[in-house]
């Protein structure tokens, strides 16, 4: 369960301050799939980063499963990112010198899981994303869709409560994009993981239970597909 109360995020850019988030109130329940749409600079990514513990709000409170992130130390936040959150980026952000398996194992390294167990867990997750035959491949030997699946496997490897996906299909062709969305939806439904997805693409947003349209750091419109149906 994610709760945001009047969350503000101010950036200073050359003496000018910009409200990336301007008083966001939001509740996301366990197992929900929420798509966040809106134009560039509307604060979508900032919202995702704050929920993911990569950024801190200037004002307001954010709680995840009762933990107040706005008061957490760096160590607590890194533990939170390690155990509860999985990030998926538009540009995959895989480590080019690592194999697929090593990329997937990375969060387990920081969780101090021993090597032999890391390999086993990572293999299982690679199976889930249907890449068992690509374990030893380096990212440049994989297609875009495969790379994103490796990135998803990395996000899933620590069994997180929340998946945060920032334009996960943005760099993919439509067929790969569909496969990725199916995979993410499946994880959301099968495992009850909260899925927060930032996208430009309304078709991609159409997979979600709920859609938030952001504008100038505020939630301008909320559409609940489940109620609409």
């Amino acid at each position: 369960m994610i709760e945001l109360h009047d969350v503000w995020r101010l950036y200073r850019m050359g003496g000018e301050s910009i409200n990336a988030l301007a008083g966001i109130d939001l509740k996301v329940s366990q197992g929900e799939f929420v798509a966040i749409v809106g134009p560039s600079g509307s604060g979508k990514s900032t919202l995702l980063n704050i929920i993911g513990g990569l950024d801190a709000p200037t004002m307001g409170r954010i709680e995840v499963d009762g933990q107040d992130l706005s008061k957490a130390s760096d160590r607590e936040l890194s533990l939170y990112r390690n155990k509860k959150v999985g990030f998926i980026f538009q540009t995959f952000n895989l480590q080019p010198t690592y194999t697929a398996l090593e990329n997937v194992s990375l969060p387990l390294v920081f969780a101090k899981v021993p090597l032999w167990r890391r390999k086993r867990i990572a293999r299982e997750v690679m199976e889930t994303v249907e890449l068992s035959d690509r374990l030893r491949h380096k990212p440049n030997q994989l297609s875009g869709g495969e790379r994103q699946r490796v990135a998803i496997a990395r996000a899933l490897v620590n069994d997180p409560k929340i998946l945060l996906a920032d334009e996960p299909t943005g760099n993919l062709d439509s067929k790969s994009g569909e496969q990725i969305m199916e995979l993410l939806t499946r994880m959301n439904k099968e495992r009850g993981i909260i899925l927060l997805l930032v996208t430009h693409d309304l078709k991609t947003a159409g997979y979600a239970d709920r859609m938030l349209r952001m504008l100038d750091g505020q939630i301008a419109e909320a559409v609940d597909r489940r109620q609409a149906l």
Partner: protein
Amino acid sequence: MSLLDLLRTAFSNLRRRKLRSFLTIFAVVIGASLVSLLVSLGIGAQQFLTAQIKAMMPPDVVTVASDPNRFEIGVGGIGFGGNPQEVSDDEDSPLSLEPLTLQDIEAVRALEHVERIDPRVTLRAESVKLQGSDKSFRTSLRAMPQYQVESTDLVAGRYLTEQSRWECIIANQYLDSFGLEQPEDALGRDVIIRVRQWSSFIGLPSETKDYNFEIVGVTEKTLRSTQIIISIEDGKELSRFWADNPDWYTDDIPPAILQVKLEDSQYADQVAQAVEDLGLGAITSKEVLGLIGTIFIIIQAVLSAFGLIALGVASLGVINTLIMAIYERTREIGVMKAVGASRSTIRLLFTTEGMIIGFLGGAIGVGIGYALGLAINRISHATFLKDFQTFNISAFPWWLMVGVIALSTIIALAAALYPAHRASRLDPIEALRYE
């Protein structure tokens, strides 16, 4: 992140840029090999000098002088370059000596733990030659009591005894000068030692006198290559002629310096203190060695300064390498943070890389320094130190190896602190966007 993973990751990061890592490590290698080699040379010289002094000044002997300040001169008292030292009227010149009084000598003899006392006989001989030969050589005569003679190592013959008269032990190097093949060839031969009176030093008329000695022993090769050892009694006689004073070393003019033999070396400090309490000067071999140790610490500090400068320059390379690595790995650092690396983990990762550079550089450097030291020892034993096979110019005790490796590691670690701090403070969001 576990220690093993930390090391694994740091190593694999260094392997990614092989040439750059190699060059950075190489700079540390130069510094570490310089430090270790130079210090090892200092240690070698110190060990050699210490051994020589121990032979001349056994640990169970206290040297006693009539002037309580005799041994206080130290290094600074010579006054080279300093202001002239003030001298009060009732004070003797530090370089002059009065004879001891008989009471003083008896008081020293009566001290606890004193086994025996002998005068330190001052001797000057002009030359020495083998009887029947016309080639004369320079020599430094030493008059020693039997126990001290017995502490030198002989290659042939026997030691002098308390009763020995007109017998001597020659330094090994004389064999060559006298044209003798084997040490045994010298035994039983006579040498003629010529003494010229001291007045010749200052240009006054002087006489010479020749003394015949039978060679009864030949020493091992040592630094004292012109030494000829004779008994105390013979020494006194030669000394009286040299000084042109038949009363020297008699009750009329007792010696100024005594060599006091103790029951055991453990009493050296105690007896030296007791002697000083009598108003006399005393010095032990420990004190001399301590002074030499101090001098060598200074020498070594100067020597290792060169290597330390090289290590300092190498540390700049470490900083440079790691800052470059931050730029190359900015995105990676962002990803690491996103998947759960804390600031301290990132900091640790970079300092570990620095430490590995320092450790490898230090270890390789010590290895090279050691190898160079061995080579120098070999070459010197084959050439200019042929006669001193037991003397190693370069000495590598274990603590030097451990110390230099630790020093390189710590210097590289210190150099890594700033880059590591910078890497840890990277904003993950910026880092993930970094192209």
